[in-house]
């Protein structure tokens, strides 16, 4: 494992974001739920035009403790599935331009142990020698076999909107 990381370091076209931000929202007439994770890890490879993202489900911060508990213990089952991952490729990515570009990232999103192919629209900005990627997309709770008891089904939206923002730096350490 250490060896693979060492190889990783030699590649000059890799960028890392250790403190990416992912926020999700569930809006219903009963209540609005919002949770934020400021410690999302992402690696961007401008050579292969690939992005990998990994986050800890327990690192999402909610306004209320009860929401955090339900989310981790009942819905996501964080003991069994502590992480959510994404791995994908940026289609038609122009690594040279310093202009803002909106691209599709096609890849696999894994939440709650379930993998699903997904297209995410993202805006990419090159600032100096580093990149910023941000955007917003929707996922359906049903797609990831997340069971919500009937009593609470009116409190949680069927589709959850997810916002992300990554500021990459050169992978040098």
């Amino acid at each position, binding site marked *: *494992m*250490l060896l693979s*990381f060492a190889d990783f*370091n030699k590649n000059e076209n890799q960028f*890392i974001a*250790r*403190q990416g*931000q992912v926020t999700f929202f569930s809006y219903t007439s009963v209540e609005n739920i919002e949770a934020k994770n*400021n*410690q999302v*890890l992402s690696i961007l490879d401008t050579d292969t035009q690939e992005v990998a993202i*990994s*986050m*800890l489900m*327990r*690192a999402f*911060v*909610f*306004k*209320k*403790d*009860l929401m955090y508990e339900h989310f981790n213990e009942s819905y996501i089952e964080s003991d069994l599935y*502590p*992480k959510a991952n994404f791995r994908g490729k940026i289609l038609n990515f122009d690594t040279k331009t310093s202009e803002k570009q909106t691209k599709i990232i096609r890849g696999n999103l894994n939440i709650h142990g379930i993998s699903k192919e997904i297209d995410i629209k993202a805006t990419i900005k090159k600032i100096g020698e580093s990149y910023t990627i941000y955007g917003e997309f929707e996922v359906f709770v049903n797609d990831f076999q997340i069971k919500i008891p009937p009593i609470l089904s009116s409190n949680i939206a069927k589709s959850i909107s997810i916002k992300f*923002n990554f*500021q990459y730096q050169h992978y040098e*350490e």
Partner: protein
Amino acid sequence: MKSKNKIFFAVGFLFIIFLLVIFIKPIFEASEKNLENKVAELTLSSNDLIHNYVNNEEKSNKLYTGKIIEVTGFVKQITFLNDTNTIILNSENETFGVICDINSNQKEKIKALKLHQKIRVKGICKGFLKDVILLNCSIDLMTNE
């Protein structure tokens, strides 16, 4: 007499509501996130913590995740990205570190920090990605050493 009774009940009623607000409301809200005065379950160095996670993540998750732990290490980086205060602690293995999300009530202490300074951080361990992640941290500057 009757009006006196009414006042008595009104005051009593308000008092009961007051008590309910004070004692029941916190149950539905976020609990006190300040860990400064809580006792850590484990104390160890950032090197040991990272070493354990790199060698056996599953076992380390059982040992540390969800617990209040106290980690000693050297400041590698201080960032204020997305309105958060974050300290990254060094380890012997340069690829890995400890990301500490610092509670906003510790702002004054962050200002006093210098790079490569040795500090002790107490927070809730959330797990390991490329770094171990601690949330709601408080800082101990270790001025006695």
